[in-house]
């Protein structure tokens, strides 16, 4: 069969790949607020005056940056699963919760992204001149306001290049979730190539879609950086 009818014919595999693509996009997009948010919290804790807190947060980052992403995902995924089992055993079967693979995937990716992004957040928090917070405080702003209204808006510009890198890592890392029974783009390609014995075609198509992603992300990142740097020479 020609490649065109294999993809777009009446029994073509394009719809499956498309569904996989949507899952991949959803996985990455849903992970962003959790992963980057947790990373910011981690970064704030790393700058805290308490030494034990700092050490614990640094250990977290060192651990998850020092081991393969695939292993991190497995640890979080199977760790969650066994933890749920232990809890169910302790609390009785009424508490047994079935873990949704997609949710577990988002949690696992968030754990990794939090570790990566916290370093970028720390660097950009340090890049905001201390005078900004001092001035805001002396104007009588509440600490919460100091952070939300003065510091946070200035973080984005500095953090953007690093965050862009982490975003590309994240999009590519979603492919690892395919090994955990989430039917993302790569898993869809695997299914299609197993059924048709045409792996080159389907993995090639998946690679093409990933490539489009990363090119679009690159263009979008350049645009955002240009916009954020308006007014800064």
């Amino acid at each position: 069969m020609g490649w065109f009818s294999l993809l777009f014919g009446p029994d073509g595999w394009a719809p499956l790949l498309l569904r996989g693509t949507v899952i991949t996009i959803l996985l990455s997009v849903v992970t962003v607020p959790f992963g980057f948010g947790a990373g910011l919290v981690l970064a704030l804790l790393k700058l805290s005056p308490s030494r034990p807190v700092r050490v614990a947060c640094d250990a977290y980052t060192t651990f998850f940056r020092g081991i393969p992403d695939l292993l991190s995902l497995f640890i979080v995924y199977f760790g969650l699963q066994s933890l749920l089992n232990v809890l169910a055993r302790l609390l009785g079967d009424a508490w047994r919760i079935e873990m949704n693979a997609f949710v577990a995937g988002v949690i696992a990716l968030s754990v990794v992204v939090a570790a990566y992004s916290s370093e970028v957040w720390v660097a950009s928090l340090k890049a905001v001149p201390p005078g900004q917070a001092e001035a805001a405080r002396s104007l009588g702003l509440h600490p919460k306001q100091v952070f939300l209204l003065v510091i946070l808006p200035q973080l984005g510009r500095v953090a953007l290049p690093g965050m862009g890198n982490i975003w590309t890592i994240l999009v590519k890392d979603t492919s690892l979730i395919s090994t955990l029974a989430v039917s993302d783009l790569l898993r869809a390609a695997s299914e299609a190539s197993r059924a048709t014995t045409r792996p080159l075609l389907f993995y090639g198509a998946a690679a093409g879609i990933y490539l489009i992603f990363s090119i679009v992300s690159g263009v979008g990142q350049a645009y955002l950086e240009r916009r954020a740097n308006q007014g800064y020479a």
Partner: protein
Amino acid sequence: MLDALEGIAGFVFNLDLLSTYGWRLLQGLRITAEVVLISCSLGFLLSYPLARGRMSRNPLISAPALAYVTFFRGTPLLCQLYLVYYGAGEIRPFLASVDLWWFFRDAFYCCIFAFTLNTAAYQAEIVRGAVQSVPKGQLEAARALGLSPYAIARHVLWPQALLIALRPLGNELIGIIKASALAAIVTLLDLMGETRFVFARTFDFSIYLYSALIYLSITQAISRLWNWIEALLSRHLLAGRPATMVLGAATRKGQGAALDPLRAEP
């Protein structure tokens, strides 16, 4: 309560497991080391011509090099690995006819093949960024002094470029060690593969933690070693500062993309 604590302790530590299956992890570690060392060195050899291609003024050379680098950095390594490993099966008659099937039949060689092509793309960008961040005046001055092209490369360009490339190259080595865990997915029994094997047998979660500790100590050791090498090689510059800070250009705007730590530590 005590019961629960015991449950959690058994959940994290299990020394019996280590004494039964520890040797398996060590065996896997050997495979991981082989895959990483071979593909990293081959990738380094490939990276130089690629970087030259990227810098070429001839679009017939620079466009394919750009396409290569964009493809291998823009798609997941797992997808590339599947393309090689499963794709080779599809064109088996052809590979057999050119007597290459023995190579692509083996998951070990497939992993080395895919990882080499992948890391070559990353290393090429590192090398390119480093070469381009050597100030032009250095080369002009060397040429004005009448140095031969070889002498310029040997005494002016590379000592400066390699110092700048050192740190990102170290990050890339760590990146490849981490990425090599993907070999387990195509049935290779590397450290990750042995870990999965033991887990499938025992359903004991702590094997993942032991494996993580091994990976962690390796990546940490390399990162320490790299700090030491960098300090050693840049001691002629401002005392105690990393080369990238002194030579500056690497982190300057516009050049940052060249040293982009896409997979390495951000």
